[in-house]
């Protein structure tokens, strides 16, 4: 979820009326936004935007545009989406780009004098779109340039890594693209996007001046926009055509909102694209649909009627025309998130306000129930609490050291674990295969706590099982321990025996050997013909490994629901 900075005064100007914090908080639900922080002195508001599918809202212009639209009942489409004929300026794409970074979109922005505020917001939008929407520049990256210094047509093509030199932003001396990748901080940060490319993408103008080395860095000569610049070139490159065009559409709309005149640019490809060989950008991608009124009314639970639905959609910025059964809708050019009629229904609800829908309390009768396993678990918990055991509740992600090494089961049949691949910390690297280590951890941390310690926990464990579809099984397991100077096998055996008696489960103990327990003081617990667990006195080496100074014994077995 992106979080951005907006400034109260700038926002008020864009929304077209002075806006108090109370106003802003009241309006933000329209964009699924929430104020995270407000600094009175600077007027800076940190806003978190929830909708990962609406990149047009990740900037102050977009937030203000959406709110303004609802407040004023709608908005007229931007003229630059519908200009006819050939554009004044042209970008020629060279053969070969299709395998490296196939798409580019661009427009000119005239007559808006770049303010400090505007530049800061432009840079923020550029970053948010490239990082969050463009997956760290991989699918989308954006560049801004000083238009008057550029002579069109501009070429988007490939060069040999050391064929050409230009001065990248942030440096004084000229470098080749290859040097940028190996020396420039941005080259080091984003260079991996171009891994494996023999030739590298570059934008240059008719006079051979380099605009930028996308998606890495702009040239300093043309690509260092400054406060006071009035005429700009905006360019987006990337690997997904509709995302590239959408990013440009958003950027163009933002500049238009600040007063710029947007002039489209023709992009001419030598290869076929999903939208043809010549694409004039910005481009309204015609994201229109005819959707059923009934579907909207049913989803919202209110017979709103064609007129009310049309009014709500227009107010939210759609072009909408309702007939008796359906409404044809068209999203504004800076949106591309309409997938299903439910998306339209939600926008109707948002415009009208969720509070305008009165809740209907649930009417249908359904039988509630806990699973058999949970019911069994609860019976066991009640019994053990009655026996005097304190229930524990542990995190279940921990280390191999706790689950295997301290339990003395390394290099035995018991050591298999479900392990995490992308480990953040060795302390959270494995799922617990049993609960006893969690209870011993309690003992290790509680030597000065009033004795005796009778502890139990019932919960999920994950055991490796290569037969299972997912390579492991989630089981319900019950573990209990006793720690005090007289703790021994027979005490825990008494508790186990009583537990089995009350559960009416027949069981027997088999003499087995288990590295965690003292030989001759350990039993395998068998229910029916299933081995379900162990009971025993912990081996002193186990206790030493946990630095526990108190005799401790325990049992653990798998719990299954009674077969019905």
């Amino acid at each position, binding site marked *: 979820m992106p979080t951005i900075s907006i400034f109260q005064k700038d926002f008020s100007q864009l929304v077209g009326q002075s806006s108090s914090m109370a106003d802003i908080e009241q309006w933000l639900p*329209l964009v*699924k936004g929430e104020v995270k922080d407000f600094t009175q002195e600077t007027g800076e508001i940190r806003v978190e935007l929830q*909708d*990962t599918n609406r990149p047009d809202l990740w900037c102050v212009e977009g937030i203000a545009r959406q709110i303004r639209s609802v407040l004023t009942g709608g908005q007229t489409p931007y003229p630059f989406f519908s200009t006819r004929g050939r554009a004044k300026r042209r970008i020629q794409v060279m053969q070969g780009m299709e395998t490296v970074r196939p798409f580019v979109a661009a427009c000119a922005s005239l007559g808006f004098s770049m303010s400090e505020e505007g530049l800061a917001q432009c840079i923020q939008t550029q970053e948010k779109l490239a990082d*969050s929407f463009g*997956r760290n520049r991989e699918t989308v990256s954006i560049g801004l340039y000083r238009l008057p210094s550029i002579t069109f047509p501009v070429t988007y093509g490939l060069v040999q890594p050391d064929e050409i030199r230009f001065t990248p932003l942030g440096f004084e001396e000229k470098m080749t693209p290859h040097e940028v990748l190996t020396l420039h901080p941005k080259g080091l940060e984003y260079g991996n996007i171009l891994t494996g490319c023999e030739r590298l993408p570059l934008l240059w103008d008719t006079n051979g001046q380099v605009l930028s080395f996308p998606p890495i860095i702009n040239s300093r000569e043309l690509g260092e926009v400054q406060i006071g610049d009035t005429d700009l070139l905006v360019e987006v490159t990337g690997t997904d055509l509709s995302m590239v065009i959408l990013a440009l559409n958003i950027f163009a709309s933002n500049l238009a909102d600040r007063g710029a005149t947007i002039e489209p640019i023709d992009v001419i490809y030598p290869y076929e694209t999903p939208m043809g060989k010549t694409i004039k950008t910005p481009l309204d991608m015609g994201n229109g649909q005819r959707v059923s009124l009934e579907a909207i009314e049913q*989803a*919202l*639970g*209110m017979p709103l009627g064609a007129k009310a639905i049309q009014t709500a959609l227009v107010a939210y910025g759609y072009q909408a025309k309702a007939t008796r059964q359906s409404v044809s809708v068209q999203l504004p050019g800076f949106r591309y998130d309409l*997938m*299903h*009629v*439910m*998306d339209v229904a*939600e926008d109707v*609800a948002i415009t009208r306000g*969720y509070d305008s*829908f009165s*809740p*209907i*309390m*649930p*009417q249908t009768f*359904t039988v*509630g129930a*806990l*699973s058999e396993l*949970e019911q069994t678990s609860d019976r066991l918990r009640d019994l*053990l*609490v009655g026996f*005097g*055991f*304190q*229930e*524990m*509740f*542990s*995190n*279940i*992600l921990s280390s191999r050291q706790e689950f295997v090494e301290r339990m003395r089961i390394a290099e035995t049949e018991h050591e298999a674990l*479900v*392990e*995490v*691949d*992308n480990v*953040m910390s060795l302390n959270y690297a494995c*799922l617990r295969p049993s609960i006893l280590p969690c209870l011993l*951890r*309690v003992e290790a*941390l*509680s030597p000065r*706590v*009033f*004795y005796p310690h*009778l502890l139990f926990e019932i919960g999920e464990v994950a055991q490796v099982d290569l037969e299972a579809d*997912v*390579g492991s*099984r*989630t089981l319900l397991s019950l573990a209990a321990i006793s720690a005090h100077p007289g703790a021994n096998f027979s005490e825990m055996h008494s508790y186990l025996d009583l537990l089995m008696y009350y559960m009416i489960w027949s069981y027997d103990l088999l003499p087995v050997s288990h590295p965690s327990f003292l030989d001759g003081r350990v039993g395998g617990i068998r229910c029916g013909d299933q081995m379900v667990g162990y009971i025993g006195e912990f081996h002193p080496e186990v206790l030493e490994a946990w630095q526990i100074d108190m005799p401790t014994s325990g049992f653990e077995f798998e719990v299954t629901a009674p077969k019905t």
Partner: protein
Amino acid sequence: MDAPNQTDSLHPLEIQVLRALGSAATEALKDPEIVQATTLAPSQISMAVGWLLTKQFVHLVSETTTTLVALTEVGTQFQQVASPPEWILQTAQKTSLDGQATTVKDLQATGEFQPSELSRAFGLLKKEGAISLGAGGSLQTTGKKSPSVEALRSLLNQIHEGSQPLKSFSEEHQALLRQYAVKRGNTQEPFRIDDHTVRAFSLTPEGRNLLPNLREDAAQEISQLTPELLKDGSWRNCTFRKYSIHLRPPRLAVGRRHAYREFLDTVKTKLTSMGFQEMRGELVETEFWDMDALFMPQFHPARAIHDVYFVKEPTHAKRIPEPFLSQVAETHKNGGTTGSKGWQYSYDPERAKRLVLRSQGTAVSARTLATNPPVPSKFFSIARCFRYDQVDATHATDFFQVEGIVLGSDINFRTLLGLLKLFATEMAQAKEIRFLPAYFPFTEPSVEMHVRHPKLGWMELGGAGLFRSEVTVPLGVTVPVIAWGLGLDRMAMVALGIQDIRDLFTSDLEAVRNMRRDL
């Protein structure tokens, strides 16, 4: 309260202490003096004095702390036989007199001392030049005396007489005593250095007032009724000592449910009482059920390596059940039969098999949808989930999500709000509610519920929505479905009086025993 009544409830131990203080020649008595003046053990006296202090019959006049050195059991043995260096010297002398050679190995073989003790002693003797190594590693006395051995011997003898203040020894001896004193992790040392506090007490005026009324027969009073007294009826001839009922009772270690789990128990009871059936799932999930089935595109940022825990081995599930895999794949690609245009990308069925630690409880709901559930029906789960997050006061690596679904042909946005309103009253006793637009990849419309909790004020209680057709249709469900999730941890933390989310699962037994629920 008049004096006779107060004396009735005095414990015989208290009476003895009061008498001792009352008949003393001095105004105040130190605790060893009280021991002498009574027949009581120091622990009994400290207990009785404690009670009398609370009742304000005696008060503390002074308190002095002295550091005392005493012999441990090991020390007494050293004193009577020999300390390790002393023993080495003696043995070496003896064997060389006998014309034999002794090596360090031979010494170890006797088993008289621990190897670590021997090597320390040997190091000391070599350093002080009292012993040297001859041919074949044999120990030889040099005739030089070991100052440490001699000092140790004199200290052992001196302290054997009784414990002594540490200060009464010279600086060097103090250092030596410290070196050979019991420490944590090393209990096999001859000396014990402890702070010893001597307190002096005297009677308060109230305490002095009690003296004339102290019972003479206190020692003959009955403190505990016994089966014998009942059987032979002799209890009739006894007086029962009256208890001081306001004293703190002794501690108990009892059996109890875990307080956080008990909180979750109330949640599941509420949910079943509202007609919800429990669902359970697996800790290890495929990306398919954890994300694909929930219409999160495979390029979704929340699926990256920094958000989800991936399983090391095996990396992929054997299979994803059909027809769900193909139907979900089609839906991602172009909407399939859902009326959606889909995400328009090439879906990777191998990626769907990638195993992860379940990152959201909604995965359990997705699996339930694929089981052809009855209509109408309601389900919930309290599912352990995992997030790739730095652990801190507000983030845990594993935690519980309370979530579920409601299926019904009458389901719509307003019944969704109705259900949430019911949750607000049932779960948070809240009467004021706000519904706000929200975004979840798998629901549309989506809503966030904020409620005014009677104790916590405005808080976010949960998120919900109508499952997108892109979720339900590929899994075989054609009626509308509500998906909901409740964020109850903050409520639980306030109810349990804890500030750090990690404390919900603490391994500190004292904290678990003390945790109690207030809400």
